[in-house]
């Protein structure tokens, strides 16, 4: 047998370890050299070193620690050559010596706490308010999720150069604005954490209900959002709303497989084949929700908006059939959500639950109040819900108008065809 298959196996091992470690490497190096792009360059040097050395010297026993120590060594070399970075040298040498002192191959040789802190700094940097939401999403997927620009472009059906430009512009904005590489504290933390959670939920929703294009969902984005929220749970194990979001995303993802039929048509919640719901994700969702409640309780606070939405998703998950759904409980949870986090979307969802408990006329009253407020006039689901309630009240003519309006407003082809078919009923 030639050496080639072995070399190829080692190369694949290098690449896999590299993909796993990349966000951590860049997060740590950014603190050391003070700039994300320079950090990425140095991390790339470590990758090349592994490609050169592992096939020759064997795969190290701790691949992650090897990459980290090598990257830090490269950072020292880089700083020595670069006068503007030279003031960083004492910090870096101290840290590197500490690493090299510990036994080689010992998994503890790279201090886990240090990596966690740097990942948190990076997370709050990629979600910094100086960036647009779109840039926050791209940068978070790149630097926390470790996706390549090609993968991000594919997920968002965008050209790769567009994503490359978006990311380099975002990094320039961070540098020019002098965004400090730190985790916000005190009152600022809560506000900044909201932005982080919104970014992750946005990624999930983009995958869950695609707003443009012909697919119902881009499973990859949902998978990435799941991975991101699980990483967040590891980074912020004491934040109730992180677990609230984790619960919401796990529970919603549990229904991904049953949301469309073999022809790609949308299947509404009440018509879904519940045996296809992912029991593991439901179980993980319940666990995260329990943790969210326990953490909120420890702080003496009420459940946050994600935990409340997750609680609603959990009621659906618990119902073996659509008829078993505890709509009274769902309506109650929406009432709490509406009181604490009022929004026309919450009001619309509450109307659906109220219609299930007290009949379509009661639901329609609430929907009409939303219509009168005017802010959701362009939102296709307002018309879809109103059409559904009118149809149940036997007002077919009015219902048809609403379904046609919903079809006109949605950017999703599958949703449009569902609305058009309901308009024909």
């Amino acid at each position, binding site marked *: 047998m030639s050496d080639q298959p072995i070399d190829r196996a080692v190369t*694949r*091992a290098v*690449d*896999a*370890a590299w*993909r*796993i470690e990349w966000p951590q490497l860049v997060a740590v190096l950014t603190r050391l050299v003070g700039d994300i792009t320079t950090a990425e360059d140095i991390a790339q040097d470590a990758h090349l070193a592994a490609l050169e050395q592992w096939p020759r010297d064997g*795969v190290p*026993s*701790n*691949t992650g620690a090897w990459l980290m120590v090598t990257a830090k060594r490269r950072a020292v070399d880089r700083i020595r050559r670069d006068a503007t970075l030279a003031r960083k040298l004492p910090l870096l040498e101290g840290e590197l010596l500490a690493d090299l002192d510990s036994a080689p191959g010992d*998994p*503890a040789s790279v201090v*886990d706490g240090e990596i*966690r802190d740097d990942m948190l700094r990076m997370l709050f940097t990629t979600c910094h308010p100086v960036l647009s939401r779109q840039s926050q999403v791209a940068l978070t997927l790149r630097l926390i999720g470790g996706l390549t620009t090609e993968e991000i472009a594919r997920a968002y059906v965008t050209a790769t150069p567009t994503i490359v430009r978006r990311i380099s512009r975002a990094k320039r904005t961070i540098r020019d604005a002098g965004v400090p590489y730190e985790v916000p504290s005190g009152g600022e933390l809560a506000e900044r954490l909201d932005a982080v959670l919104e970014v992750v939920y946005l990624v999930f929703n983009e995958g869950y209900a695609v707003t443009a294009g012909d697919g119902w969902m881009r499973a990859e984005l949902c*998978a990435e959002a*799941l*991975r*991101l*929220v*699980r*990483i967040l*749970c*590891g*980074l912020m194990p004491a934040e109730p709303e992180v677990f609230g979001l984790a619960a919401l995303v796990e529970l919603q993802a549990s229904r991904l*497989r049953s949301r469309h039929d073999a022809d790609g048509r949308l299947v509404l919640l009440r018509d879904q084949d519940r045996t296809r719901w992912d029991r*593991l994700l439901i179980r*993980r969702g319940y666990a995260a929700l329990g943790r969210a409640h326990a953490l909120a309780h420890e702080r003496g606070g009420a459940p946050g908006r994600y935990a409340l939405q997750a609680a609603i998703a959990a009621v659906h998950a618990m119902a073996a059939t659509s008829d078993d759904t505890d709509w009274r409980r769902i309506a109650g949870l929406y009432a709490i959500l509406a009181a604490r986090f009022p929004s026309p979307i919450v009001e619309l969802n509450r109307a659906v639950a109220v219609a299930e408990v007290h009949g379509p006329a009661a639901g329609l009253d609430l929907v009409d109040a939303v219509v009168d407020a005017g802010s959701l006039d362009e939102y296709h689901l307002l018309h879809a819900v109103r059409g559904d309630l009118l149809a149940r009240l036997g007002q077919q003519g009015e219902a048809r108008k609403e379904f046609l309006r919903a079809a006109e407003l949605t950017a999703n082809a599958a949703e449009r065809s569902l609305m058009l078919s309901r308009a024909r009923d």
Partner: protein
Amino acid sequence: MRYLMLIRPDMDNLPEGGPDEKLNEDMGRLIEEMTKAGVLLDTAGLRPFDEAARVRLANGETTVLDGPFTESKEVVGGYCLLQTRSRDEAIEWATRFLRIHGPEWTMELELRELDEA
């Protein structure tokens, strides 16, 4: 993609006294790392093989076989359910799992992707 990782220690060459304290510590650390990376969805070790039961279907007849069973090559000692972006990443995590075991261990991991179509 999700992978079921079946853990099969060589039952004829188990180290005396089972896992030592260092292995338990390293295992705890690795499991934490895999959880925090969003990779480990579920894991458990299994009770000893001689407590197992086998329920078999052949020729339309079901039979219940109680242990102890003599064959020991294919014994599953535990499992992990992994979520990774690629097969290579699953292999890298499996390799990390093996590396924390000392040279006194002989074992094989089998990675099977879940059919989720």
